[in-house]
């Protein structure tokens, strides 16, 4: 089977101007977190990030589509142990994503030669909002960073207009503010009361690539009532900026990402920041990665299940803000030669750091966890088929080949 997958052409249909590229991945992982809510530690074996993806284009790339199915609703319905993780009613576990993770259609370079070298694009469907940085699923680490809900806005109904000219690409989007609450959820386009949710939120991102391999972006978003699907919740104002380097010298690959985010909810009442820097060096079959993260997390009231929060929270109260300072080291090896379509990468990932209560409130890490030290270990095996190098969440103009990483670039 492995030989078949290795030999299988990634692009299965290659008619003139039309192709479909199937891709997929999953990770067998054993996660150990110390501490977990209530104190102590917990170890679990799970399959995470199981996705199947179709990436296609037609009419010489004028039309492109992406369809990604995510099966985490089946493999981790109660989330993945991840110290510091939060969002969508989960805490210290990363929530499962929706089954229909991405389903987008993009029209590229719609004006052709009419605007010279400019590239006008339109993207519609369900997927990533043009805000922030690449999805963690397509970055060197297995465990998501704490800042996932600060640095990405995903699984929304999106309408995006893009324009690229030279090294600059500008994107503007309308989308629905509501987050999914369970894997089977779809974006709320219009509430039963007749209120449009699609279009109640907007984002804009400017991406500049001044030199080859180097990219910076700045983005802003206003997200309406993310936690209350029927609307009525507070607005969240988000900002992100990042710089990214990725190149592939003859001996392997070098990758660096530095990002900063700010989220402001309830008129400066709930302001969260994140600073993250990560780097990866791959030489031959081995890749070594390091991530530093300092991210704020709101401490929302918990349910009886200590890994779940009141969602949506009927009061706009919190019990404090915690700051998670984490160092993560990741080592992986390719079992197959780099560049083949099937990748098998055993890995080990270690996280150490601390959590501190900031900005007052009754939340106390020592009461909740019994300690302010954070330790996590996960080991496992990543299986990917054609996913390596794909930057998830970039569509249309930003998904052009020159913007993509070479095959295998992001293998762990």
């Amino acid at each position, binding site marked *: 089977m492995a030989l078949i997958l290795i030999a299988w052409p990634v692009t299965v249909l290659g008619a003139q101007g039309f192709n479909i590229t199937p891709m997929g991945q999953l990770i067998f992982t054993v996660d150990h977190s110390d501490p977990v809510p209530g104190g102590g530690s917990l170890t679990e074996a799970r399959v995470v990030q199981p996705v199947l993806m179709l990436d296609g284009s037609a009419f010489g790339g004028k039309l492109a589509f992406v369809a990604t199915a995510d099966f985490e609703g089946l493999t981790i319905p109660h989330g993945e142990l991840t110290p510091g993780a939060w969002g969508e009613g989960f805490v210290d576990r990363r929530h499962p994503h929706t089954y229909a993770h991405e389903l987008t259609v993009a029209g590229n370079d719609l004006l052709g030669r009419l605007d010279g070298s400019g590239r006008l694009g339109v993207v519609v469907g369900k997927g990533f909002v043009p805000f922030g940085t690449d999805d963690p699923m397509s970055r060197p680490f297995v465990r998501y960073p704490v800042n996932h809900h600060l640095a990405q806005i995903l699984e929304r109904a999106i309408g995006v207009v893009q324009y690229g000219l030279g090294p600059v690409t500008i994107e503007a989007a309308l989308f629905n503010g509501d987050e999914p609450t369970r894997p089977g959820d779809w974006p709320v386009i219009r509430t039963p*009361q007749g209120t449009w949710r699609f279009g109640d939120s907007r984002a804009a991102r400017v991406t500049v690539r001044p030199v080859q391999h180097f990219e910076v972006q700045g983005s802003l978003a206003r997200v309406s009532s993310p936690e*209350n699907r029927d609307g009525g919740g507070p607005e969240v104002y988000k900002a992100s900026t990042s710089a990214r380097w990725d190149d592939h010298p003859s001996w392997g690959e070098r990758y660096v990402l530095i990002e900063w985010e700010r989220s402001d909810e309830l008129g400066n009442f709930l302001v969260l920041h994140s600073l993250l820097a990560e780097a990866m060096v791959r030489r031959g079959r081995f890749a070594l990665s390091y991530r530093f993260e300092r991210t704020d997390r709101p401490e929302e009231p918990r349910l009886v299940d200590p890994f779940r929060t009141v969602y949506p929270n009927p009061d706009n109260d919190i019990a404090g803000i915690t700051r998670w300072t984490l160092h993560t080291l990741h080592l992986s090896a390719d079992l197959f030669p780099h560049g083949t379509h099937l990748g098998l990468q055993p890995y080990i990932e270690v996280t150490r750091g601390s959590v501190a209560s900031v900005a007052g409130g009754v*939340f106390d890490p020592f009461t909740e966890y019994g300690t302010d030290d954070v330790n996590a270990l996960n080991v496992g095996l990543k299986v990917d088929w054609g996913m390596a190098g794909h930057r998830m969440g970039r569509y249309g103009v930003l998904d052009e080949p020159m913007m993509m990483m070479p095959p295998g670039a992001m293998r762990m």
Partner: protein
Amino acid sequence: MRDHAVARWWLVRASWPLAAACIALASCSPESASAGAGTTVVDSVRLVASIPVLPNYGAHDTFVRDGLAFLCAWNTGVLIYDVGNGVKGGSPSNPQLISSLVTSADGVAAGPEVHNAWWFQNPVTGEKKYLFIGQEGPGTVGTSSSGDIHIVNVSNLAAPVEVGFIHINGAGTHNFWMDESRQILYAAYYNGGVVAIDVSGTLSGDMSNRIIHEVTPGGPNNTYVWGVMLSGNTLYATDMVSGFWALDPVTLATKGGGNNVPERYGSDQWVVGTVAYSGTWGGFFRTKGVPGNVVKVWQLDGNGIPTLADSVVIANTGTISDVAVSPDGKALVITTEGGTGAGLHVFSRANPLKPVEVAFVYVPQGLHTGETRVVNGRTYVFAAQDPDLPALNIYDITGVVP
């Protein structure tokens, strides 16, 4: 058109929780740590009405008086229902909306956040003119809060008008109680402690200068008052941080109590005669592994000073969100949030110091508050059901406690 849309939405969404609530009527098996008895359903709690609330973060509290229900529905404002007054032919099983008002946000970014109300019936002047509304703005439990008291003229129930407000810098209001004969409004003010306000005469504009006393019973950094209640010659205050207090209602000086619930955070309270009950909040553990699922039972001495007499555990839930005693004094009514114990719990007060649970209605979303009132001879609980199906649920508990 909008009402029709809401109705259709509700018909679709309400069917399963209503059924669940009805089915769950006979299922009650809480532990009662001190009462020690198993629960027996001696009569049925009946859900007689469920009024959907637009999802502007739902319903929070209800003040019921003279057959009128003032439903506090967050950014939807206050909705005034006839539930037996007769002004619009309403009843508890068929509430009729009279009017509504969205109070001003007063600069709070989250909006009006209408949380609680008190309809002031002034025995000195005979007026029933003012409705006080609490705005619960964003807050950090234990540290900060925001939100004003809004003063609404309800002389014309069909057209309420906001006429004034009370603002305290650095603190926001929560639950109220009144000494109507003295024309004093008491307000819990979270980190601002307990506040007494002179509400006599005409109220208009900024009434912040009517504040008579402000106290922080637990002291700085140890005060976050959830609720207040006047009983006899004592004003009681539950502080999420520093416990259950007895205060002098004239000076707000501490009479006794306090720092007496060290293992949990406090929540709501009720006092009747020489017994008081206070709940606990379980948003977070104050003590590792100890949820906020306990009702504290207090024996009050001749000066109103509380001594802990018992602790009643309600199993499988996270927070005691509201505590009340029925007007006839027979039933202790508890609302809860979180877990399979979320919903409405009714206890017999045959022995007030040893309440015994007699009925439980499971509400998956949880109930935020429950106001217990007699309307036309029957006893009802007006309960605020949490998102994601916010609603005013009205339960008939007549006869549940013989």
